[in-house]
C-alpha cells in the first residue's frame, strides 16, 4: 500500500468522522448538563431531511442548513419540555424522538416529493462543495493542466499529497466541526456559563442554591445540542451525500453516543474517538486495503461492530473508567 492510499483513507475518515464529531459534541453539551440524550440519531435524521428538502427547493445549501438546524431545534425543545419541564424519563423521550424522526421524514418526503421517501438529488448550489485551499492540487489545477486529477496527485510529493487530499478539499462544515472542538472546550472549561453548565450536571441543587436557574441552563444545553445535531444532519444530506434517503443517519447518532462515552465526556478526547470511529467506517469501505495490511480477509461486519464493542469494554471499566456526570438522567425537583 502506498502513501497516497493511506492519505486517501485518512481523508475519508475525516469526512465520515465529521457528523460523528458534531453529534458527539451535541451530546457532550446535553449530558454535561445532566440531560441524557439518546435522541441524537433522530435529531440528525430530521435535520438531514429538512436541509435536503429546503436545499432542493431553494437551491441554496445555507438555507437548507438553517432549516435543518430549525427542525433539530424543534425536536430538542420537545426533549427539553419532556425531560426538564415535565420531568419525564429522558431515555424514553429520546427513544420517542428517534422514532418520530424515522416516521415523519419519510411521511413528509413522500408528501412533498413523491419519490418513495427521498428528496430529489441536489444540484451544485444545493450542496456544500469542497473548498480548495491555496496551493492545493484540485480539480481546477487538473483542468488547467488538461490531465486527470488522480495522475497529478500521484506525481506530487508526499507533503503536497497530504496537503491536497487530507487538509484541502473538504466542505466548509468539516472545518466548522473541527473548529467546534476548541470552541466547546473553551465554552465548557473557560467560561462562567460552562462552569455552571457542568455544575448543573453534577449537582443541580448547588447551582439552584447559588441563585442560577437550573431549568434555564438545562434548556440552553439542550438547545446547543439541537443546533449541533442540526449541522450534523445537514452535513449528511447536503455535503457527504447529495440528497436525503430514508433512515440515512444509519446509526451514526448511536456511534456518536459511543464516542462520547469513549471520550469520557471530554471535547478533545471526543475528537480522537470520532476520528478513530471515522477510520473504522472508512476502512469498512475499503476491504482491499485491509487485506493488504493484514494479509488476510477481515470481516466488514466486525469492523462495523467495533465502535460498539469498544464502548462496551470501556463502559465495563476494564480500560480506564468512564464516569458519567453525576446528575445525568435525573430530573431536578426543587425543594419546597
Amino acid at each position, binding site marked *: 500500500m502506498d502513501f497516497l492510499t493511506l492519505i486517501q483513507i485518512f481523508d475519508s475518515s475525516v469526512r465520515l468522522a465529521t457528523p460523528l464529531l458534531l453529534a458527539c459534541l451535541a451530546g457532550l453539551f446535553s449530558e454535561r448538563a445532566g440531560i441524557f440524550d*439518546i435522541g441524537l440519531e433522530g435529531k440528525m435524521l430530521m435535520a438531514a431531511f429538512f436541509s435536503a428538502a429546503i436545499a432542493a427547493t431553494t437551491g441554496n445549501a445555507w438555507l437548507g442548513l438553517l432549516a435543518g438546524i430549525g427542525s433539530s431545534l424543534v425536536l430538542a425543545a420537545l426533549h427539553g419540555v419532556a425531560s426538564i419541564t*415535565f420531568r419525564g424519563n429522558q431515555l424514553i423521550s429520546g427513544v420517542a424522538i*428517534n422514532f418520530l424522526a424515522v416516521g415523519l421524514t419519510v411521511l413528509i418526503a*413522500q408528501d412533498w416529493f413523491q419519490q418513495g*421517501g427521498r428528496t430529489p438529488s441536489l444540484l451544485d448550489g444545493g450542496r456544500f462543495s469542497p473548498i480548495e485551499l491555496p496551493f492545493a492540487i484540485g480539480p481546477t489545477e487538473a483542468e488547467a493542466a488538461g490531465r486527470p486529477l488522480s495522475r497529478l496527485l500521484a506525481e506530487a510529493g508526499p507533503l503536497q499529497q497530504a496537503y491536497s487530499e487530507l487538509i484541502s478539499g473538504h466542505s466548509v462544515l468539516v472545518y466548522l466541526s473541527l473548529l467546534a472542538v476548541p470552541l466547546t472546550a473553551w465554552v465548557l472549561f473557560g467560561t462562567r456559563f460552562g462552569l455552571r453548565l457542568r455544575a448543573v450536571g453534577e449537582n443541580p441543587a448547588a447551582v439552584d442554591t447559588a441563585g442560577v436557574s437550573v431549568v434555564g441552563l438545562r434548556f440552553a444545553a439542550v438547545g446547543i445540542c439541537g443546533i449541533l445535531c442540526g449541522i450534523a444532519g445537514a452535513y449528511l444530506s447536503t455535503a457527504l451525500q447529495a440528497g436525503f434517503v430514508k433512515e440515512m443517519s444509519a446509526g451514526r447518532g448511536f456511534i456518536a*453516543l459511543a464516542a462520547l462515552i469513549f471520550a469520557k465526556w471530554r471535547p478533545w478526547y471526543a475528537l480522537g474517538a470520532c476520528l478513530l470511529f471515522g477510520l473504522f467506517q472508512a476502512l469498512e469501505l475499503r476491504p482491499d486495503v485491509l487485506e493488504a495490511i493484514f494479509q488476510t480477509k477481515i470481516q466488514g461486519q466486525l469492523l462495523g461492530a467495533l465502535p460498539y*464493542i469498544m464502548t*462496551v469494554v470501556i463502559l465495563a471499566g476494564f480500560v480506564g473508567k468512564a464516569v458519567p456526570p453525576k446528575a445525568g438522567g435525573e430530573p431536578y425537583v426543587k425543594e419546597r
Partner: protein
Amino acid sequence: MEKMPKWADVVLIPLISLLLAAGLSALVILAIGESPTEALNLMIEGALGSTYGWGYTLYYATNFLFTGLAVAVAYHAGLFNIGGEGQAMLGGLGVAYACLFIPWPHWTVALLFASVAAALFGAAWAAIPAYLQAKRGSHVVITTIMFNFIAAALLNYMLVNILKPEGGFDPATARFPDAVHLPSLHEILLPLGINFSKNAPANVSLLVALAACVLVWLLIWRTWLGYEIRSYGKSETGARYAGMSPVKITMIAMLISGALCGMMAINNVMGEAERLVLNATEGAGFIGIAVALMGRNHPFGVFLAAILFGFLYQGGAELALWTSIPRELIVVIQALVILFTGALDNMVRMPLEKIFIALRKEKA
C-alpha cells in the same frame, strides 16, 4: 393519601395519552391530504374485517406480546431494556440452529426445544449487559443499545458467511424441514368448525405468548422473586436494606427479559418465515417499549396494547396498499404513544391529579 383513584391511574391516563397520540396522528394524516376517518375505516376493515386481517393482527400481536412482556419485567426491576431487538435477533439464531440441525419427530417437541433454544440465546445476549450493570455499574440502556448493533453485525456475519446454504443468493438460512412446521390458526381452528384464513401467519405461538402473559403475572405478583424484583425497582436502597441482592435481582430480571425477547423467534422465524432472514425482527423489539409503557407494565395491559399495536401494524400495511399514506405513519403513531405514555406522562398526570384533588375537597 393517594392523589388519584387507582382506576384513573391505570385506565384514564393511558386512554387520554392514546387519544392525544391518535389526535396528533389524525392531524398528520390531514396534513398530507388524506381523510383521517377514511384512513381509520380502512385500517379497521383491513386489520379486523376478515379472518385474514385478524390473522395478521394476531401474528404481529404475538411478537409484541413477547417483547412487551420483556420490557415490562425489566421495568419492574427498575431496568430499561432497550436491547429487545438484539435479543430477538439472537433468539432467531437459536431457533434456526434448533430447527435446522436436529431432526425433530414432531412439531410439539420441536416447539418445546426451539423455545428453550430461543430463550437461552436471548437470555445470553442480555446476560453481558446485565452483568456489567450489576457488577460494574455500566448503564444497561447504553450497553443494550450497543448490543443491538453488535447483534445486527453478528447476524449479518452468520447469515452471509456460515448459515447461508450452498448456492443461496440472499442472506438467509435454508428452509426449515416440514416436520417443524407450526400449525397456523387455520389448522388449529378447522377441527372446531371455524374456517380461519389459510394465508394468515398467526400460529400456535400465540398460545405460547398468552401463557407467557399468565406466567409473568404469576412471577411478578405471586412469587417471592417477583416481590424482590418489584421492591428493587421501587427502591434500591430499601431492597438492599431488606437483605435482597441487587446483583441477583438485576441478573435474573434481565435474563428473563432477554429470554422473553428471544422467544419471539418461535413466532416470526419458526411460525411465519420458516427460515431465518436478515431483518426478521422488523423492529418488534422496540415496539415492545411502546407496548409495555401503554400497558402500564401489567401483563393484561401488555396484552391489550399488543393487540392494539398488532392492529396498527396490519392496518398500516393496508393503508400503504390502498392510499398514498406510507407505512411509516405507524412509526409516527408508535413514537407518539411512547412520547405521551412514557416521557410526557406527567403532562397528562399533573392536571388530572389537580382535578381529582379539587373534586375530593368539594366532597369533604
